[in-house]
């Protein structure tokens, strides 16, 4: 089972590498969009989780 | 036959499949829209009917978009000419098609009775009218349309739009298309609803099936008296340019020539009528699954009959027959057709698999009590 998963991951990795090489070469802006969008989502999400942490800290201090 | 001609033929076949898919899937949703006020006597029942196609209407409507896109990409000259020639009718079709998504999304989002009643009327109009126009367009095309091309390829219109609107044969074809959609919509409602919607839907589906069979047979007799077009010389691999390179003759009953040349083709219209009648019997016997698939057969028979009769014409010109649009002279370039074929070969299987997955996830009966209490429902 784990070998299956590993091969799956390896295939996904190779495909995304090929995608990155090809699109990064032919269409740098398309590549930038993919990377940028993921980054924007992650940063926005991280900001929200940070707020959770800030809230928790604040409520702990009140106690 | 060279490879370009084969590509053209393949795309004509795909166009046929798209027309059938559009008839079945969009027709089914349109039928539900048309029947909405008849099968649902109160708001809860109407919402139930809507939610039966709720998760799928959007995906189904894509058949319509896809039909337009495929005609644009694979038959650009047909797209450019037919949509302009039928301008007023096309605009009416557009108005009703854009009313639908909004009606679905908005109808149940406000509680006022007037609000919901207005959207119900929008469902009726946007269900019946597009199917009527869909059928009527086939009727008009069969009769021949008035246009010619200038030397730059600009088309000129030779007839008024009124001749397409007030045309008895086209009206017959339009009504037939509405009847088929009512049948398919009724069967879909039967599949996923309980009493009392189930019983009402069954009655309307039966009426739709019988009406379609009668109208189809009448149309068949009528067509034998209509002017048919015949291509006398054209090279299937010709450059796709309607301005020159072909000769066309016109004769009464000409649309039956393909059937007379190959009598086995009579099986196609026969399949249509047989499916309409058998389907009606299945509805009567309360076998909606079988009836649904028989409805697909009805559409195959109907579109197949029109395609066989007209082959290789797509939209004949009544005023300048030599510039009629055929499969050979109105397609995209060989490169474009091949390119679209590859794209379709990749994406159609993907689409089919995720569409069926969606149906699988959303399977099961829709109950009025659940619909009223679910905040996500239409």
């Amino acid at each position: 089972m784990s070998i299956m998963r590993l091969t799956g991951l390896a295939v996904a990795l190779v495909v995304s590498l090929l995608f990155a090489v090809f699109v990064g070469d032919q269409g740098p802006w398309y590549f930038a969009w993919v990377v940028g969008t993921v980054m924007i989502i992650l940063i926005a999400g991280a900001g929200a989780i940070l707020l959770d942490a800030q809230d928790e800290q604040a409520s702990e201090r009140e106690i | 036959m060279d490879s370009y001609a084969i590509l053209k033929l393949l795309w004509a076949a795909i166009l046929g499949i798209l027309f059938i898919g559009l008839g079945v899937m969009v027709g089914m949703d349109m039928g539900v829209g048309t029947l909405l006020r008849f099968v649902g006597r109160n708001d809860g029942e109407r919402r139930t009917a809507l939610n039966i196609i709720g998760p799928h209407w959007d995906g189904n409507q894509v058949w319509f978009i896809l039909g337009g896109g495929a005609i644009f990409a694979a038959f650009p000259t047909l797209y450019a000419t037919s949509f302009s020639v039928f301008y007023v009718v096309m605009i009416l079709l557009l108005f009703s098609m854009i009313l639908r998504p909004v009606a679905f999304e908005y109808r149940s989002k406000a509680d006022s009775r007037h609000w919901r009643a207005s959207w119900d009327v929008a469902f009726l109009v946007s269900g019946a009218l597009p199917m009527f126009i869909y059928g009527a367009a086939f009727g008009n095309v069969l009769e021949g349309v008035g246009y010619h091309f200038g030397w730059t390829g600009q088309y000129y219109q030779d007839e008024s739009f009124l001749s397409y609107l007030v045309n008895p044969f086209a009206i017959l074809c339009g009504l037939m298309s509405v009847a088929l959609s009512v049948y398919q919509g009724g069967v879909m409602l039967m599949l996923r609803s309980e009493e009392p919607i189930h019983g009402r839907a069954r009655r309307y589906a039966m009426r739709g099936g019988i009406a379609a069979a009668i109208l189809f047979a009448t149309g068949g007799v009528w067509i034998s008296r209509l002017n048919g077009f015949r291509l006398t010389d054209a090279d299937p691999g010709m450059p796709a340019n309607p301005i020159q390179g072909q000769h066309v003759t016109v004769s009464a009953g000409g649309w039956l020539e393909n059937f007379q040349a190959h009598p086995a083709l009579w099986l196609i219209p026969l399949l249509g009528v047989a499916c309409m009648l058998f389907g009606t019997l299945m509805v009567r016997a309360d076998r909606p699954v079988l009836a649904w698939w028989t409805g697909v057969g009805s559409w195959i028979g109907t579109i197949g009959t029109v395609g066989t009769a007209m082959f290789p014409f797509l939209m004949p010109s009544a005023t300048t027959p030599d510039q009629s649009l055929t499969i050979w002279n109105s397609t995209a370039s060989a490169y474009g057709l091949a390119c679209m074929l590859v794209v379709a070969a990749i994406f159609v299987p993907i689409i089919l698999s995720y569409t069926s997955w969606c149906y699988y996830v959303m399977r099961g009966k829709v109950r009025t009590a659940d619909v009223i209490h679910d905040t996500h429902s239409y």
Partner: protein
Amino acid sequence: MELINPGVVDLSRFQFALTALYHFMFVPLTLGLTFMLAAMETVYVVTGRQIYKDMAQFWGKLFGINFAIGVATGITMEFEFGTNWSMYSRFFGDMFGTPLAIEGLMAFFMESTFVGLMFFGWDRLSRPAHLAVTYLVALGSNLSALWILVANASMNMPEGAHFDPDTMRMQFDSVVKVIFNPDAQAKFVHTSVAGYISAAMFVMGISAFYILRGQHKAFAARSFRMAALFGIISTVAVITLGDVLGRLDYEHQPTKIAAIEGLWHTSKPPFEPWLAFALPDDAKQENHLEIGVPFVLTPLVAHSFDTPITGMTELEEQAGPRIVSGIQALSALRRYGQGHDPADLAQFRAHEADMGFGFLAMRHAPGQDVTAISAAEMDSVVRQTEPDILPNVFVTFWSFRIMVFLSLWFFAVFALSAYVSLKNRLERNRLLLKLCMWSIPLPILATEFGWITAEAGRQPWTVFNRLPTFLSASSHSVGYMIFSLAGFALLYSAFIAAELFLMFKYARLGPDHGAHGAHGSHLTVAHDRKDAFSIVSSLSS
């Protein structure tokens, strides 16, 4: 050869602009809000906190109200090329139709099928599966934009197609060139990210409204912060890509860039000012009331300090020889169509690159027939055609400026909001919150003006340097056009009224409405956390 009634061409243009601009009031929100929903749901799946599910569902509801009209009005666009731009569709459809059809197959189908599951599948799908569905909706709507902009880029910068005298149209010859057209790339990212800004401002503005009223505090604070971060990065990206687009126009559409900058005469680097204000006068070919910033124009447009930028007067002069050559190309083409003489074909090939300018001269040729132009008339026809190569400078100049000034405003608002939100000091900055609220419609306005800049600046062509707009339309009667325009106006007004009614209704009701209360208290958080761990572990095992 009779030309289409110019009134009908104008009405067709007006109708297309009306329907496209209207469609684009809803699309940007779809492009961005889907990814914001995905971001919220991602946080939900990772942390398991109910409040993020409430966020995804509430903003999802507003998204749904908006999405429906976006889809509905998009249908119009796909069919309008055929109903109103017949000659364009025949001339360019072989290539232009392909991206539109791929859009249907690849993107629109995906978006439309999964959007149903996104709304209806909350209780039927596992959390990761539903998250995947949300991402597919987001990807689908943006891929949809990608193919539309690939098609649009081919109008602005035709690549991957050549004219074929036997079919009298542009024949498609390279799908790779079409997809990786530099204009398509930059336009797609620019537009998609502009959509992110619209969505971020929308979410931020409504959240600001709740904070101002002291409602749904935890919910609004989280939505606000995610939107502010989303917005500030997107604004930086949109400005960067705007610069890339300007650079591409400088190289490929000099008339557009000269009109954007109101540059009637070739610039004198490095002093040449960038005009922040001016009233371009198209008839007199000059500007009134210029206010400029010196030394800015040359580095901004040409990315250098010493390159002169060609002005519109000079561009007109340069077009003269191309018009003469184009007339020869077109005359040869017509003769070839009648007799198929190889000599005519050779003459056409020699002047092929300028064929579009021959079309442009048609309007001024005797009897609208370029073959009938005598040697004596040639000069006057060319003089009359030259000014036709310019777009409407006033419209291009000002739509560009409105877009740019608005983007600077977004930058300021998002930067401040992100800062204040990260410092957790939102409630004390009521003015900022009010500004956020009132800024909700501005990104939509900016994208609309962006479209006007790009497409008005493309004039007088539908296919740049190939096919003029006045030849592209369908030969309808004015009556037809009035019928369709009146219908669109009526229907679309009803839509916007219904949309605003529902938007306001649901925004006012807030996230507490319905079965899913958004309390955001730590009680629910604690309750859900155990589930979250099992989800995360099931993902990684």
